[in-house]
């Protein structure tokens, strides 16, 4: 995996933003922009946390070696 998954990216950026905001030397405009960006990442992280696929599938392989998935009932 070359780039981190979206949730990891959201959390990393959020942690960065919070660290920046907690420093004293960030001016108001920058603080507000960071806050705004932080809220976007929070929303996106929450959405990903609430994804609930929980699907179970089974791999099928055809004669030519092509693989596909079919959902399993359980």
């Amino acid at each position, binding site marked *: 995996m070359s780039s981190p998954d979206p949730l990891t990216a959201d959390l990393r950026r959020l942690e960065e*933003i919070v660290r920046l905001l907690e420093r004293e030397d960030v001016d108001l405009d920058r603080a507000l922009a960071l806050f705004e960006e932080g809220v976007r990442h929070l929303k996106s992280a*929450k959405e990903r946390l609430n994804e609930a696929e929980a699907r179970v599938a089974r791999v099928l392989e055809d004669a030519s070696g092509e693989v596909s998935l079919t959902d399993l009932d359980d």
Partner: protein
Amino acid sequence: MSRKPSGKSDDLFDAGESAVLPSRPPVRPSTRPAYTVTELAHELRAAAERATGQVWVKGEVIGLKVYEAGHWYFTLRDAESQLRCVMWKTYTRKFKVEPPEGIEVYALATPTVWPGRGELRLTAVALLPTAGVGLQQLSFERTREQLEREGLLDPARKRALPAFPRMIAVITSPDGVALHDIVTVGRRRWPAARIVLVPARVQGDDAVDELVRAVGVTNRLAGVDVCIVARGGGARDDLLAFNAEAVCRAVAGSRVPTISAVGHETDITLTDLVADLRAPTPSAAAAMALPDRAEIARHVGALAARLAHGLRSRTTVLAERLARLGERARGSVIRRVEARRGEWERLGASLDALSPLAVMNRGYSIARRADGPIIKRRDQLGPGEPFSLRVTDGSISARAE
């Protein structure tokens, strides 16, 4: 032996040669009519079989080939000589593993000749390693040494698992309990992950081939983040496939980080050693592969609180600076802040929706004394004293009765 029983001098094949050969005592011609090749080969076979009968022979096994039917062909060798051997599947079936290259064995064998190929063979019916340990154990050690030499057991090869996998492949028997256990843990910890069964028998004659194939399939499947190789319960012998070199090589070569959940607490398999992580049970493997949603949600909640606090402390610093500024400068800053007020309130609202403050949406409010502290106990507020109630869309002024 006479090459030319009839001995005619004008024989096409012998004419030139006889001229240069030194004269030798004439071979006494046999009175027996010429053998056919088949007759002679069978004669030799009978002689070979009579020579020693069934005997134990000590030597190293080299060049073992397994034929489809399950027969083994190999060579028994010592420092000076070698003899080709065959062991029919009736006898090889008793072995769980093939003898590793170079192993020294006692073979119980009968010499014979195969007329069809003109070859001397030993027909072996039993093999015992001379080292006094079982073939399985020896095979395990040999394979482990080989994998180690190639660096496949190097801890530096172990890959980190992705933090939030979206798809997990589970290589296991479709009839086993392992898949069920993994799905149960997966639903509880991280329901966003899709779990994909890659079926493979994990014990019996076909297990090695099916496991190798399943690793291949997993690698061809797009989007798989983690693979769990799992086996639930069973006797020690059931682990054999996971000690097979082919399975180890497949797992070591897999593009997908792999957790092995096949061994016992006390019984490590070679697949455990080449995998990126080893789990004691399939459930434990699922817990390693998947983050805990509740824990991540707490982390996100903490970040939301820090974010809100971060902005609040910014505005406090600003207020202090304003107090120190002259009237004109103050006016311009106030206008800027006023212009942003709407924006802040909108952001504040969206933050609250994400933070623990969202409980207010469920009907809770926060009561504060006029001088600030949150009211948690009766004695914090006397009769007639004012207080405020923080509700979802602002504050309500109130007075105690």
